[in-house]
């Protein structure tokens, strides 16, 4: 394979340029007094001319790539160098020198972008083929499993790859690469999601966890349910039953989808648990309701001289007091648990009195 000197880009090299450039660089950075000489103008013109040659050389390199950004930068370099030349012709060599220096920097920037773009261009082509293959394989698997969560991620990955292609068509290869990497990330996430939620043991654990969450929601809310909240909890139970059926039928993806739905519905039920809004208000209202129920139950306990009911009422009062102190400590979960237990015991006492 032919090799070139990698540190030596094949630049056009007029023999007279070295001394001219050395002198010119000194002049460009020199004090204004020296810069105003007639020689200075000639040197700036030579610098501009040399930059024109470099622009032509860079244009050939840039043309080999599909980088729109490199083309754009080189166009601006060309424009700046033309303006530098105009400045010199209009008797403003200092401004011309400054503009030419910027044009020269832009040329190197375009060369750098072209080199970077060429690597990205090749990599994008090869990786896009692999991405399509992998995406297709995972989509089929997700559809076979009925895994809507993974399919959702794969749809996003596909959309991202389409946007990456649009950037590629615009010649913005770095942005295309960034978008394409994100599409690959989304595909990997879908694979991980299927792996993690596809394992039956994981799903069974998750079923239990959401069932616990639903039980807690029932416990916390008690009778304090709006019609909407009651409907959400009912739908959550139904979704969980369907998740169990899907899991038994070997459909982990659909089971996962139903579990997620059950969780969201349970959360929604808690958000809509009636007119009161916050947990504190719910506990306070249940305390009031307990106290009013307690008066009636105590009267009947005394009337019937029922020892079992008396014990249950005493236990209920104990839970009620613990609920009140938990409320004072802002321990809402405990307060709800205690007041619910108090109501249950009071209900048992009522049953023994019938």
């Amino acid at each position, binding site marked *: *394979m032919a090799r070139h000197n990698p540190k030596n880009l094949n630049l056009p090299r007029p023999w007279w340029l*070295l001394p001219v450039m050395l002198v010119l660089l000194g002049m460009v950075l020199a004090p204004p007094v020296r810069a105003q000489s007639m020689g200075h103008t000639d040197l700036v013109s030579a610098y501009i001319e040399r930059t024109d040659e470099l622009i032509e050389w860079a244009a050939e390199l840039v043309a080999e790539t599909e980088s729109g950004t490199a083309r754009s930068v080189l166009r601006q370099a060309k424009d700046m160098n033309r303006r530098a030349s105009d400045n010199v012709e209009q008797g403003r060599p200092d401004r011309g020198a400054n503009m030419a220096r910027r044009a020269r920097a832009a040329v190197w*920037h375009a060369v750098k972008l072209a080199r970077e773009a060429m690597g990205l261009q090749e990599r994008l082509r090869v990786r896009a083929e*692999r991405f399509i293959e992998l995406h297709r394989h995972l989509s089929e698997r997700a559809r076979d499993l009925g895994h809507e969560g993974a399919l959702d991620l794969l749809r996003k990955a596909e959309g991202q790859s389409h946007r990456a292609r649009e950037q590629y068509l615009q010649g913005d290869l770095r942005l295309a690469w960034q*978008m394409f990497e994100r599409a690959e990330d989304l595909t990997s996430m879908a694979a991980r999601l299927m792996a993690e939620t596809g394992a039956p043991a994981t799903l069974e654990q998750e079923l239990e966890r959401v069932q616990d969450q639903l039980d807690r929601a029932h416990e916390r809310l008690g009778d304090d349910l709006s019609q909407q909240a009651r409907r959400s909890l009912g739908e959550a139970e139904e979704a969980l039953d369907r998740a169990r059926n899907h899991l038994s039928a070997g459909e982990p993806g659909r089971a996962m989808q139903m579990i997620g739905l059950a969780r969201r519905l349970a959360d929604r039920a808690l958000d809509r648990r009636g007119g009161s809004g916050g947990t504190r208000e719910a506990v306070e209202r249940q305390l009031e309701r307990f106290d009013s129920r307690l008066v009636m139950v105590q009267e009947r306990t005394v009337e019937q001289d029922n020892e079992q009911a008396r014990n249950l009422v005493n236990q209920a009062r104990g839970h009620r007091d613990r609920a009140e102190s938990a409320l004072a400590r802002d321990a809402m979960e405990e307060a709800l648990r205690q007041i619910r237990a108090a109501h249950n015991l009071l209900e048992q006492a009522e049953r023994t009195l019938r």
Partner: protein
Amino acid sequence: MAVALFATATAYARSDSTWRWDLSAGFDATTHTYNLAVDDTTATISEALVQAALEGRSARGARHRWRLRAEGGLGTELTRQRVDFDYRLLDTTRMDRLRTDATFTARQYHPGSEYEYNSDNNDGRLEVRGSPVMMGNVALELRAFAGWHDYRTPSTLEVDDRDYGGGLFLRSRPTLERSWSLGLRTSHRSYPDSSEIDRDEIGIDLDYDSRGLAGDGISLFHRTRNREVADETVRPPAWSHWTDIRLALPAGSGLVRTELQSETWDYGYENEVWFDSWRMEGFLGYEGGNMLQASWHAGLTGARLDAGDNPDTYSEVGLRGGVDAYSGVVGGTIIVEVGRRTYDDGSVRTEDPADAFTLYSDFTYWKLWLMGQWYMSRTMSLEVLASFEPENHTEQADDSALGFLNLRLVWRP
């Protein structure tokens, strides 16, 4: 074509197939900031858009499986149409015996579009794979494909192309635990308006995956390609080798993840933009938690580009961490990576010292990546994808930043 695909799909549609549609509205933006000589230049393009899509699928477990998705989008910059169709014929052991994939995309740029290259264009691709012979659990698969890309007004970067090719593969019967394939692939791509860069490619692909349902195991992919160009003085021929290895091992309650990628480019000759290189990239980290609730990962990243004495040779190290949560009302992913790239010698020395320059300067980079969704109701969700990657160079003039944002309000009745 869309009508034909639709007709084919509906012919196979059964009463238990599913059809869904969705409607979305949103906003896309891209930004690219770089320094031009002494000034920062920021190229930003933003687009508001609405999109509607219809998707149909065969019933799960059907012998004839198909999927059709047709979508159309109207944006402030572009109008887009896309149709995807695939069909699979499975045998009694659930092995694909025939499959067809077809895609068609069309883009129409609006007058005054911010996009620089704005010729209306369309592209499409059709691929057919058949497995006429089974040898136990291994199928002999034949592949053929053809595609095109046409522009209404071709230009320097808007070039029509045609491609076609085929392949011969051996493929295992896929199971949940393991699958593999090995094959030979060949393709030809032609450019009607610049035939000197027409190319032929031939190569092998190897794919092995033993990652089971628990996510642990190994996946290995290797691809070797040889590319020949019609006029080698215009573009050099090249060999490329790409290997991707991913390993996940159980450790404690999580997984140790290792990813390694190697890319080699070996050109028939080198010049200022085509140069030989070997790139290695990797990640080593730990992943804990459960994606159903919340999971996290953290680890080290590293990369090395070896381009010989070229100024492009660099080393890179970084730290990456992220969290994922998918099943709540609000879910998504946040990933942050920070690292440093150091060039061995980013300068170019020329025979003429006046032309010497520094092509690359070392830099610290950040990669921020957000994907989120908020299920506002059973049918409505708000989705966001965002990425931002700033680079802070030792030469301030080389500073740059790239980013994009996609925001969507999606209705899936």
